[in-house]
């Protein structure tokens, strides 16, 4: 087990610390709130020679991702970070990266999308990435962001898929909390050397010459996508393996989802990211009133933990999915649809309801989540009725 120390850090500082310890080969950066500060912290490590990272300030996020693709194809361990509109601008290249099967770490400091312009947190940006075949992990707090980044490097390189680590803008990125930091050597041993240090010229490997991203005509495109599909399903095992290895060095055991008081729960709320603490508080307060409620947090978002969700909901009477982004399609937020699909894997057929909350940085309180449970229970019992299964939790109409 590693030596650890506890220090007070913001989410961005904790992420920069993970980046320092990993000692990425290449970092491509373009500033955008609330990510900018993160790369500012990291820039100091670069400038002071505390890392070997070559850092380049590019001219936009599209170029940031393109730079990462080039660097990763050349065998470098590569990172970039962005938020909101920056993620949106990257999307074309996100598909290119995953289709080429290059490992890249992308930190998404979750931010709302324009218009109207907002620099504050919601998950709309990350939802743009959900079909890109990037592995995606959400962090509840600075501690998890720190751990997730370290694990992400390994997951991505084992799976040969790029990976996104999400943490909530401002709520996590700018709030200070105690973070347990591993020692440098443990982290460096855990991630191991990058390809560029193992193979001198991965791009010029004459025994295994490759072209990245060549054209595929209709006779082969489907096969390429099928391979991607099959391999992406192998990511579950790889993530589990890395979570296990990480538990050995850190003593912290992670799972695809986190369950809270779900064992005997009739009604279960589900969320991702920083709001989970609030959701647990809501559960505690309802439990004090004798209500059988529980909560689930999604940590591994892509690939989606279908089996684990199905298992965790196999006895629930009702489920309320809390989405920090809307899909505007009349069939619920993105997470709601994922949960509804995952329920196909269980015989149980709980009553499902969906609330959209926390858009553009709107603060969320336990009373509001308690209301969400109330509404779910009354709907399930037929005391109340609904016109639609997606509703807004906090809104002035």
């Amino acid at each position, binding site marked *: 087990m590693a030596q650890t120390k506890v220090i007070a850090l913001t989410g961005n500082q904790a992420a920069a610390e993970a980046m320092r310890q990993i000692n990425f080969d290449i970092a491509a950066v*373009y*500033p*955008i709130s609330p990510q*900018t500060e993160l790369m500012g912290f990291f820039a100091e490590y670069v*400038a002071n020679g505390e890392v070997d990272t070559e*850092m380049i*300030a590019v001219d*936009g996020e599209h170029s940031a991702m393109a730079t990462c693709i080039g660097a990763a194809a050349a065998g470098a361990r590569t990172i970039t970070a962005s938020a909101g*509109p920056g993620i949106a*601008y990257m999307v074309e290249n996100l598909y290119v990266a995953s289709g080429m099967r290059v490992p890249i770490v992308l930190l998404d400091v979750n931010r709302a999308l324009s218009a109207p312009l907002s620099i504050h947190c919601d998950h709309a940006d990350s939802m743009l990435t959900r079909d890109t075949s990037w592995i995606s992990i959400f962090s509840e707090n600075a501690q998890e962001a720190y751990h997730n980044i370290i694990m992400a490097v390994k997951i991505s390189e084992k799976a040969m898929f790029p990976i996104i680590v999400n943490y909530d803008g401002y709520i996590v990125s700018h709030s200070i909390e105690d973070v347990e930091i591993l020692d440098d050597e443990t982290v460096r041993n855990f991630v191991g050397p990058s390809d560029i240090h193992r193979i001198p010229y991965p791009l010029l490997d004459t025994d295994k010459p490759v072209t990245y991203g060549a054209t595929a005509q209709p006779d082969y495109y489907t096969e390429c996508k099928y391979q991607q599909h099959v391999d992406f399903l192998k990511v579950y095992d790889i993530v589990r393996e890395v979570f296990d290895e990480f538990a050995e060095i850190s003593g912290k055991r992670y799972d695809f989802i986190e369950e809270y008081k779900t064992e005997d729960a009739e009604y279960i709320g589900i969320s991702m990211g920083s709001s989970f603490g609030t959701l647990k508080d809501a559960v505690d307060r309802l439990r004090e009133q004798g209500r059988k409620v529980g909560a689930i947090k999604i940590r591994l978002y892509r690939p989606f933990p279908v089996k684990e969700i199905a298992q965790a909901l196999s006895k629930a009477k009702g489920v309320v999915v809390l989405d920090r982004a809307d899909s505007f399609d009349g069939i619920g937020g993105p997470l709601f649809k994922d949960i509804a699909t995952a329920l196909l894997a269980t015989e149980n057929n709980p009553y499902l309801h969906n609330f959209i909350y926390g858009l553009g940085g709107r603060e969320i309180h336990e009373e509001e989540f308690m209301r969400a449970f109330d509404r779910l229970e009354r709907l399930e019992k037929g005391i109340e009725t609904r016109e639609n299964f997606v509703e807004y939790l906090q809104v002035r109409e």
Partner: protein
Amino acid sequence: MEYIRLQEKLPPKEYRSDIEPTWCPGCGDFGVVTALTKAFSEEKLDPTAITMTSGIGCSSRLPLWMNAFGVHTAHGRALPAAVGIRLAKPETPTIVTAGDGDIFSIGMEHFPHTARKNFDITLVVMDNRMYALTKNQTSPTSRHGYKGSLNPYGNIEDPFNVIKFAIASGATFVAQSYSGNPKHLAETIQAAVEHKGFAFVNVLSPCPTFNKIDTFKYYKGRLIDINKELGHDPSDMKAALELASHALDADFPELEDAEPFKGKRPIGIFYKVEKETFEERVANLQEKFRPESGEPDWDEILAKYRP
């Protein structure tokens, strides 16, 4: 197409909105607001017909302070949005106000194309030589050695000569001015608005909060008017390019005495030429291929393809 204009001049303050600017006290961009309102007033523009388009940045907030139709687009996309406006409403003066980052970094691909196509757009860039809204990073116009939050020991890149680039891109009006010289700035912007075609005004506009080098104090006494002091004729492209290639000389102390600017920053109109605008060419095309009678003769057209 002719702009919609008023019969009588409106006082400049009529072009301001009720929204109080959120800029820092002393921000150079205030000078640009004043100059724009003066130029609009002189040009008798109708506030209900002006469109002001911007991207993202401190500077890109400018349309909010104006009594005009405003479109605050995505970062870097002010010019293509303005192109859309040009095509849909060619009778509205179309002004783009944005920052050096917005136009020359993330939105760079749009500049040369909008310029060479010669859309009738007035582009006013507030060049504070860095990204201010994101709290001090180097932009493509930052000096070599400039310290931003992503390069604590100074910029290793060289700055981009936007004046030379604009002329080379085919812009039909290229000027530089300074937000600390309200008269020159208002006159230059007015000339740009009056110009039919793509008019680019690069405004040296200090950011006193972050940029401690390119300050009002720095610019004081360090500007040279290329038209008045050096007698430059903007119709002479060769001379314009020659002058433009020295636009950044003042960044280098070793060029303190070098011709033509002797350590000073050039302001004035570098280049100006009359050329058909894209909008005019579209109108001409439509005119040329418009069928004489309303409906095309389908039988005649189909007959051409019958064996």
